């Protein structure tokens, strides 16, 4: 039995309605409890420092085949962020696509304890789980791609929502995924024909279904399976001028089907909030999108903030990456995943002197500031697409300080002011809102509150981040640099009751958990018994169906690793 007592913590815990109260937190065996034995427990004195639940990143690309390909193809990136071996820490390298240990240590130093890999192709799930093994300091979850899944598209064409649900349910439990991800639905399949879909009403070649039909059917199927998370959507038409109307069209398809959480999570909306008819009149359309989201509690978005500097873009959206390649003429990688999806990778440099990049930078901030309810707009950079996650502290500073935003705005392309509403936005976020946007909002949106994530109430997992800043002494709108510095490196990051990182130094080896879902489905909807599904699987895939699932043993090959299966009762 291990006990830990955190004294004098200035706690902000939005889920439990605690806003800046100084209190003690008692931890026993990795869970938060009422009290522990003061004389025997290990004591950490927070000294009135800001204490939050462990950070959760609800959309980041950290593990899997495409991330690894980003590493291969950018040896210059691997040179950019090297750290030597130190104590328990392995040597790391890489800046925008670090090694798995690098990712884990840097997230941990920033107080993050749970990460959701944004896009895992089911066929390549093993690689993702393999890399999860070596991301030791965070719990990991994986969004599973269904945007170009042949069986799903056939079922959507037939209007059979239950069959769609059955296929998704079987695949998720086979590959140990956590939620349904749609990346440019239909577009990744059209990419197999060298094409794309321009928006939600464009039919996919051969399958003759539209993205709109796919989104609507899969959203309903998701609710039939009672999955903890909603559908996670990367809208069609990413990164093209004028795409905001397509984004609003996609969001408008979504009914309110769930009273515990949103019905749709739209990711990196910054890349989908562009106005204009070409690059010459490119401008921000964050206002209509934020207004739309404000009126619809069934939608949660994340920022996908762009920060200036070098990074690597990687997404399952193959056709979009090809368009980027044609703009940049640099290296490009492209991949088609059999019956499932596609992907592409290119390195990019976002520059202040570039008007388009400056507008993109502004749009991410506007979305966060114009969305009234912080539970509906979460903080991400779509790491590493907008910027590497190590830039999160600067984004927090920008959201909390108008003065910081103005100082940065003065350095971007001079034309930017005519094209974005950012300079007119006065809002400055407070500590509570930042806590929502970096952990509690994520926990609610992902549906992992029940397993004790994202809050510090009794019974919660003891994931705690103590930041070296006193909220009563610092005025974030003026002393924004102190805020940025504090969020860069915690005093203590505690993961399931163990101190894993102290002032940036990671102290222990892995103890993480992979969380996945298994919907309980009746035999009549069990895909393994479905003759047509099995026949087509064996006909078209390059692997046999029996070799396709990731065995459960695969997730717990180390003694200290845990895997947590959330079982749901599907209505099938």
């Amino acid at each position, binding site marked *: 039995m291990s006990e830990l007592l955190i004294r004098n913590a200035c706690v902000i815990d939005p889920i439990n309605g605690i806003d800046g109260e100084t209190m003690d937190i008692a931890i026993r065996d990795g869970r938060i409890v009422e009290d522990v034995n003061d004389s025997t427990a290990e004591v950490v004195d927070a000294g009135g420092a800001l204490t939050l639940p462990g950070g959760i990143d609800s959309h980041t690309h950290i593990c899997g085949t495409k991330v690894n390909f980003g590493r291969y193809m950018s*040896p*210059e*990136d*691997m040179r950019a962020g090297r750290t030597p071996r130190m104590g328990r820490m392995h040597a790391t390298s890489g800046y925008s696509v670090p090694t798995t240990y690098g990712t884990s240590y840097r997230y941990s130093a920033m107080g993050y304890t749970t990460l959701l890999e944004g896009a895992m192709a089911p066929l390549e799930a093993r690689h993702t789980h393999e890399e999860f093994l070596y991301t030791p300091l965070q719990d990991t979850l994986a969004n599973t791609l269904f945007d170009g899944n042949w069986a799903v598209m056939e079922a959507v064409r037939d209007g059979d929502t239950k069959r769609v649900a059955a296929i998704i349910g079987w695949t998720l439990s086979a590959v140990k995924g956590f939620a349904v991800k749609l990346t440019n639905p239909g577009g990744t399949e059209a990419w197999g024909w060298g094409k794309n879909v321009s928006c939600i009403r464009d039919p996919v070649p051969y399958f003759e279904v539209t993205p709109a039909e796919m989104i609507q059917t899969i959203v309903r199927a998701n609710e039939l399976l009672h999955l903890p998370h909603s559908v996670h959507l990367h809208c069609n038409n990413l990164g093209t001028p004028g795409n905001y109307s397509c984004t609003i069209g996609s969001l408008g398809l979504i009914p309110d089907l769930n009273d515990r959480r949103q019905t749709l999570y739209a990711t990196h909306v910054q890349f989908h909030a562009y106005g204009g008819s070409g690059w010459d009149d490119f401008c921000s359309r964050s206002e209509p999108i934020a207004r739309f989201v404000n009126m619809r509690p069934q939608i949660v978005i994340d920022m996908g903030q762009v920060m200036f500097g070098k990074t690597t873009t990687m997404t399952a959206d193959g056709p979009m990456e090809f368009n980027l390649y044609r703009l940049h003429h640099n290296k490009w990688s492209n991949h088609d995943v059999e019956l499932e999806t596609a992907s592409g990778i290119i390195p990019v440099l976002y520059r202040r002197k570039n008007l388009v990049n400056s507008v993109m930078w502004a749009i991410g901030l506007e979305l966060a500031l114009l969305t009234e309810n912080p539970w509906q707009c979460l903080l991400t950079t779509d790491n590493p697409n907008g910027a590497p996650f190590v830039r999160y502290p600067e984004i927090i500073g920008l959201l909390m300080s108008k003065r910081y935003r103005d100082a940065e705005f003065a350095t971007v392309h001079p034309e930017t002011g005519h094209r974005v509403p950012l300079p007119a936005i006065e809002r400055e976020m407070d500590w509570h809102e930042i806590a929502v946007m970096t952990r509690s909002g994520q926990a609610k949106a992902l549906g992992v509150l029940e397993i004790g994530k994202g809050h510090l109430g009794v019974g919660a997992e003891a994931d705690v981040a103590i930041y070296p800043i006193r909220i009563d002494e610092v005025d974030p709108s003026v002393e924004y640099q102190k805020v940025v510095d504090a969020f860069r490196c915690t005093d203590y990051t505690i993961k399931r009751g163990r101190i894993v990182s102290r002032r940036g130094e990671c102290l222990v080896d892995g103890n993480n958990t992979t969380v996945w879902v298994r919907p309980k489905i009746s035999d009549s909807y069990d895909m393994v018994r479905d003759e047509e599904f099995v026949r087509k699987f064996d006909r078209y895939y390059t692997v046999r169906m029996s070799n396709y699932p990731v065995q459960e043993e695969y997730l717990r090959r180390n003694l200290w690793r845990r895997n947590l299966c959330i079982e749901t009762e599907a209505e099938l």
Partner: protein
Amino acid sequence: MRVTLTVRPREKPFLPIEAETIVPRNFLDGTDTTVWRGNRELPLDAVFSVSVEGNAETAAEVEVVMRGDTALIKRVGEYMDAGRIVVEGDIGMHCGNFMSGGTIEIGGNADGWLGREMRGGSIICRGDAADYCASGYRGDKKGMTGGVVEVFGSVGDFAAEHLAGGTVIVHGSAGDMAGAEMHGGTLIIYGDCTRPCANMTGGTAFVHGTAYDMLPTFRRVGTIRREGRTFIQFTGDIANRGKGNLFVGDCRYMD
């Protein structure tokens, strides 16, 4: 000030030594520095017998002389900004990485990556240099940006890859793909080479001998006279909309 480093006989002479600390500036405050062999950090005088004559106020007044079996001493002169290094024999890989000033003189041969991503200064190699002489590093788009590399012998493959500025002079022949991806600077090869300047977008290259396996994506412009010789002028690489200039004494296309 002259610092003479004579390599002591080593028990395992085939193990390379990482000696990025051998830079004139580092000797201004004594020779109390270290080098690495594998994962072992060794004091400088465990590997070299060190002798110092005179003293110096600035790095420019420091001359480092290396003697003995230096063929596996790597990264000598990395980030060097002033002064002089004289290597009497051969030198290991990555000599003069990122150097921005001063002079390195090598009496023997140089191993791979001589003067990689060099910013300024000069390197003179009396023998041959191996692959990737004066090139950029893996993945990066910019190689050498300034300074001079002069090799009196021949060089290996990918010489002056990603060349962006400065001058590279090879008195012997170059291997395959000399000047690949170059976008600035000058490359002069007095001997022969194969497939020069693939994908070049800018800069100037001269091949006084014969360019074998000449790439078909270079457009022939005409002939010019220079230094009493006739060169065939090409521009390219048009496969990449390049506007580089390539002058060759003679060329042969692949059969």
